[in-house]
């Protein structure tokens, strides 16, 4: 199917609103994460609290890529979601744009590895996991995680991968499939593909 490669205002608004939705979702889980962090703090395991919900950060990117199916969708959505967080007054300040860029590059890489032909559980989960891995490498420097024991860092990364698989892969795929069934995506790439499949089945 011929796809327009340029970014239309409709695509950009969709990606930015996805950023808004997941910023709201993030706010919802933030306080849960904070409570867990407080509980785990005396044991030195506070870092693990937000690792369990880290996958939420990549959901906007994988969902946008699934719906729009254009190269760059995951990267730009992560950047726009980071910009929305910046506008919300995130305590990270302008650094959130940098983290959005790094996470977005990781998320985008997964779809690029499949040459933008696979938008399924595997590519979406891999996208979240690579996003998590990329930002982890940055955090080694930015948060000076290299001062922590390697075993703890590996455990943190493992929890982050599971979270990315669950949120950015499994939950996002289920949400997208449910969304496609409602028919609201018929004017997007994923909806057009569904329509083509239906016509092929009828033939």
């Amino acid at each position: 199917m011929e796809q327009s490669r340029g970014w239309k205002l409709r695509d950009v608004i969709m990606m930015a609103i996805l950023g808004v939705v997941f910023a709201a979702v993030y706010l919802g889980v933030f306080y849960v994460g904070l409570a867990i962090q407080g509980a785990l703090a005396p044991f030195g395991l506070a870092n693990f609290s937000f690792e369990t919900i880290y996958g939420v950060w990549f959901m906007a990117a994988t969902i946008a890529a699934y719906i729009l199916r254009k190269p760059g969708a995951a990267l730009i959505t992560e950047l726009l979601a980071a910009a929305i967080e910046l506008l919300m007054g995130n305590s990270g300040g302008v650094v959130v744009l940098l983290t959005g860029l790094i996470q977005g590059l990781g998320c985008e890489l997964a779809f690029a590895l499949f040459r933008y032909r696979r938008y399924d559980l595997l590519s979406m989960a891999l996208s979240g996991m690579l996003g998590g891995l990329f930002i982890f490498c940055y955090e080694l420097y930015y948060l000076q995680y290299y001062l922590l024991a390697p075993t703890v860092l590996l455990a943190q990364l493992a929890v982050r991968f599971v979270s990315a698989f669950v949120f950015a892969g499994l939950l996002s795929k289920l949400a997208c499939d449910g969304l496609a069934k409602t028919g609201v995506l018929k004017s997007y790439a994923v909806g057009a593909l569904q329509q083509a499949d239906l016509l092929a089945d009828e033939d």
Partner: protein
Amino acid sequence: MRSIDPACKAVGLLLCTLLLCLRHSPALNLAVFALCAIGLLTARVPLRKLALSMLPILVAAVGTFFTGYYFAAGSGSVNAQTLNLLGSRVYNGLVLSSRVVAFAGLGFLLAYTTDKVRLVQSLQQHFRLPAVFCYGLLAAWGIFPNMAAEYRKARAAFAARGVRVSALSPALLRPLLVKTVRWSEALAVAMESKGFTAGRPRKPYRPLVLRPVDVLFPILSTAAMLAAVLLVPV
């Protein structure tokens, strides 16, 4: 602080943050936070707002301290033999936790002294952020206040059908995503009908003029941070 061009301020604070990563100095981290706090207070940011914003940061800092204390690189568990490592463990925890506080100070300095819409406009006018992304971002930001109402509606719709969903149920995601798609289509049609499209040159409604102080802020703040990073003892 409030009058500095938002994009210039953002660049200056970003460079300061990245430079600060180069040092393991709790004293420097806390000094940076103190300077940010002074900046925030002189910009008349309400103390109560700052105190409330600092609560989650302090929880994170305490958590990070214990992580750095218990799991310092190259150390095992604490016992009589490793007691002499306690000093370095405490230091390790302080480095990591003071970093959280310093970064929050720099973040709040931007967040609480900057007009968000002006920031996007400044990025477009001074840093060539493509117009289509500027429009999309501002349109989505305008929708943000509706999200809470939409979330409540989605929960009420489930309740009306006798389905109980928890506050963080994934089932709420689908109606919110449906709304996302509909909002984006309606907004795009409305904006395109007013000529907000990519590729059409438009003059800015509010042109932002760079003053010398705007250009000097990132240069001087970065130079000061670089000097501190190079000169402040560990």
